[in-house]
């Protein structure tokens, strides 16, 4: 792409998008080097994603030498949890968005290119899915399949694909009318070829932008499910679960209302920065690429 250099320059020049990039790079770093940053204790080697705990008391304990971020409800180590939770966050975010984009491209381009009855059927199916409030549908799916990280991924995939299919369809519709598509059709190119070589590449930008925006949103939805008790199993390194552990400790005893700040803020900040990073990046992408925005 000849645009690449331009894009990169735009991204770095804009302070907000630069901030977004830095945040995401830091998280990638944390995810890759998690075993070095927070080594798994000997006794835990077989299940590194389960947070080690130090006793069973409900009340969180403040940061100490053994637990530099303190422990949360049930004496789970917060530091270990947030570091390894970064991996869970990337896993949920990337897997869900990856699957969703593929499904969206497949169905969206079929609908957009062929139109007519194919379009009608696919769009009615997306209507069905869009008719449910996402969180409620995800709740129902997780409740039916039994809570686990994989079920959360399935549930979020099921609720997110329709909007992608619609987006791609809309863009294909727009592109379809353009001259060069008409031209290649006129030259007798096959449908698949026209979709793959011409229509898709031009329609895919908005999708990718939306996808980068959505990674944060997906992680947030996963956290909400976790909070409602419909997420990863107890003790699994997952930010949503860590924040939900803090639920009953947000307000401390009278006279010391912020007593358990560490249990509340630290996992919350990780979610916040993760979502913020992807959002800043996504917004920047959109400003740069949105074909409807005049490049000034």
């Amino acid at each position, binding site marked *: 792409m000849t645009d690449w250099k331009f894009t990169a320059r735009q991204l770095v020049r804009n302070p907000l998008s630069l901030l977004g990039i830095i945040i995401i790079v830091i998280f990638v770093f944390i995810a890759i080097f998690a075993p070095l940053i927070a080594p798994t204790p000997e006794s835990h080697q077989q299940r590194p994603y389960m947070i080690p705990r130090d006793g*069973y*008391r*409900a*009340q969180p304990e403040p940061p100490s030498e053994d637990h530099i971020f303190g422990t949360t*409800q049930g004496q789970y180590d917060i530091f270990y949890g947030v570091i390894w939770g970064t991996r869970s966050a990337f896993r949920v975010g990337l897997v869900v968005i990856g699957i969703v984009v593929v499904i969206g491209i497949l169905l969206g381009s079929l609908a957009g290119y062929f139109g007519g009855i194919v379009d009608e059927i696919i769009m009615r199916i997306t209507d069905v899915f869009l008719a449910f409030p996402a969180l409620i549908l995800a709740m129902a799916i997780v409740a039916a399949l039994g809570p686990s990280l994989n079920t959360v991924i399935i549930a979020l995939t099921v609720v997110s694909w329709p909007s992608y299919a619609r987006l791609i369809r809309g863009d294909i519709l727009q592109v379809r009318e353009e001259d060069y598509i008409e031209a290649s059709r006129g030259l007798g190119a096959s449908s698949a070829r026209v979709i793959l070589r011409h229509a898709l590449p031009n329609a895919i930008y908005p999708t990718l932008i939306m996808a980068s925006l959505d990674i944060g949103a997906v992680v947030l939805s996963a956290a909400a499910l976790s909070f409602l008790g419909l997420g990863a199993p*107890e003790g699994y390194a997952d930010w949503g679960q860590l924040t939900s552990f803090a639920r*009953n400790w947000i307000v*401390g*005893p009278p006279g010391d209302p912020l007593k358990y700040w560490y249990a509340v803020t630290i996992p919350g900040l990780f979610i916040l920065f993760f979502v913020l990073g992807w959002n800043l990046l996504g917004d920047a992408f959109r400003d740069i690429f949105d074909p409807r925005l005049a490049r000034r």
Partner: protein
Amino acid sequence: MSKRLSKLGWIVIIALLTLALVAFPACTQTGEEEEEEENGGPAIPYKNDGIFVQMTIGEPETLDPAASYDNASGEQIDLVYETLVDYDRGAAGDFVGQLATDWVWNAADLTWTFTIRQGVKFHEGGDLSPEDVEYSFERAMIYDRLGGPTWMLFEPLLLAGEYAGLTFADVDATVEVDGNNVVFTLADAGYTLIWLQTICGGWGSIVDKEWCIANGEWDGTEADIPNHYQQEDGTTYLWTHMNGTGPWKLNQWEHGVQFKLERFDDYWREPAPFDFVISQLVEEWTTRKQALLAGDADFVLVDKMYIPEIEGVADLLKIKDLGELAVTSMFMNQDIETEDNDYIGTGQLDGNGIPGDFFSDPDVRKGFLYAFDYETAIRDIMLDEGITPPSPIVEGLLGYNPDASRYTYDLAKAEEHLKAAWGGQVWEKGFKFTAIYNSGNDMRKAAMEILAENLFEINNKFQVAVVGLPWGTGMVPLLRSYRLVLYACGWGGDYPHAHNFVAPFMSTYGTFSKFMSYGSAELDATIEAALLELDPEEQLDKYYELQQIWYDDAPAIMCWQPTGRRWFTKYIHGFFFNPMIPGDAGPLYYMSKSAS
């Protein structure tokens, strides 16, 4: 630019005005109590004079006294309906008359004769008569809701556990009207005391016969029994309607939100101390706590884990060290239904599951009992407010043996037993299954995690997943269909007698033992012998013997017997403790609320 700013300014001004408007009544309402206390946080204002507001988490299941067998239902029934006799304040062995003015035991005929109080009115206007008493008990027995409380009536009256197998004539003969008296004929003299204790419970509530019949309940004849025997849940009129003789009557039941009772003006005793008793369902702990501290609630449910958060508040009435007659255990099912069961892995002893009879080997069970860290559980989960009972006969019951043999936390012994289990196969291949607790009960969850962690530590092929399921809709169906493998559950006494703890845990028909396939005809005979023994010394020996059998059989892990706590605002007076009162808020009729 300036115009946009001014627009923003307008929005701010309007917002402030609205807030001020809203704040005005709020401030005038609470403006009187402004002094701050030195320590222990701000003073709690006095609110809602004449109204008792409590915030808890359980929704009543049913208002039908013959069907109710859960605490939240029992609590409301206790305030609306009345029984023939009641416990005398805190004492579990002394009784006071409620709807009976007198009661006499005749050892020769094995009869209890109750003289019925005159001039008592039901909320809907009916007068109390001996026929109402007879009808109430007969209705409970012919209804015989499965999983309900009526088994407790059948045992002393007919030496039976349920209506099936009996006739109406049998039931009819046990309770008869005689002038202004009602005569109960017991099956054995061993039940003399137990009968009085039993009918103090909500299942002994007296309903209005005419009113019930007029509203489609059982009409009192044998012919109508098939229409009401084990009637489907939710279909009895009394399920959602109340008409008792108690100090309060039903005002409104807003499902899932609140339950409101109002004072009954024609009550036969002194009128109730509160115009309204309002029980709100508030699931969120922080919300409950803030409401208590703001004076909007007079009593809230405080889980053990949150005690340190409000311990230091000066304006609270704090009551502690209450000897609850309750126990929490983990049960091991010795004959698991394997069909359609998601909780036993492969269903084979191959390292990825367990067979249905896994727990029938005593070495497995003993290994588990030694692997549970009792002291950590009391310290970390109970915050030292509880003890480990050696057997189901808990402290406070006649028959409790403080020196009974008990299991302790001993990983070496656990390893020894688990190595011997199933001819060494368990140790070699390992196992995998899912343990279940009722979701929301974090204390039971933590207990299971202690066990799971320790087993994993002994041998990392021992894998127990801990999963929470909702009680009514998730656990109960699995339990009753024998699909639960290892599950945590609690028992609170129905009446303060060792038998009420032995039978559920050790008999073939017991609430727990039945569903873990524990017990035998021989053991049942031993339990009955202990119950019916009339000589106190002998009886004590027999209960001691049962505790030894429990130890030898090792059927379940006894986790803890809690010590109770209660938290009111300082404006509440008159609380006294009786472990048999179903509501945590206590004997509301004897309590009061005032600003002083």
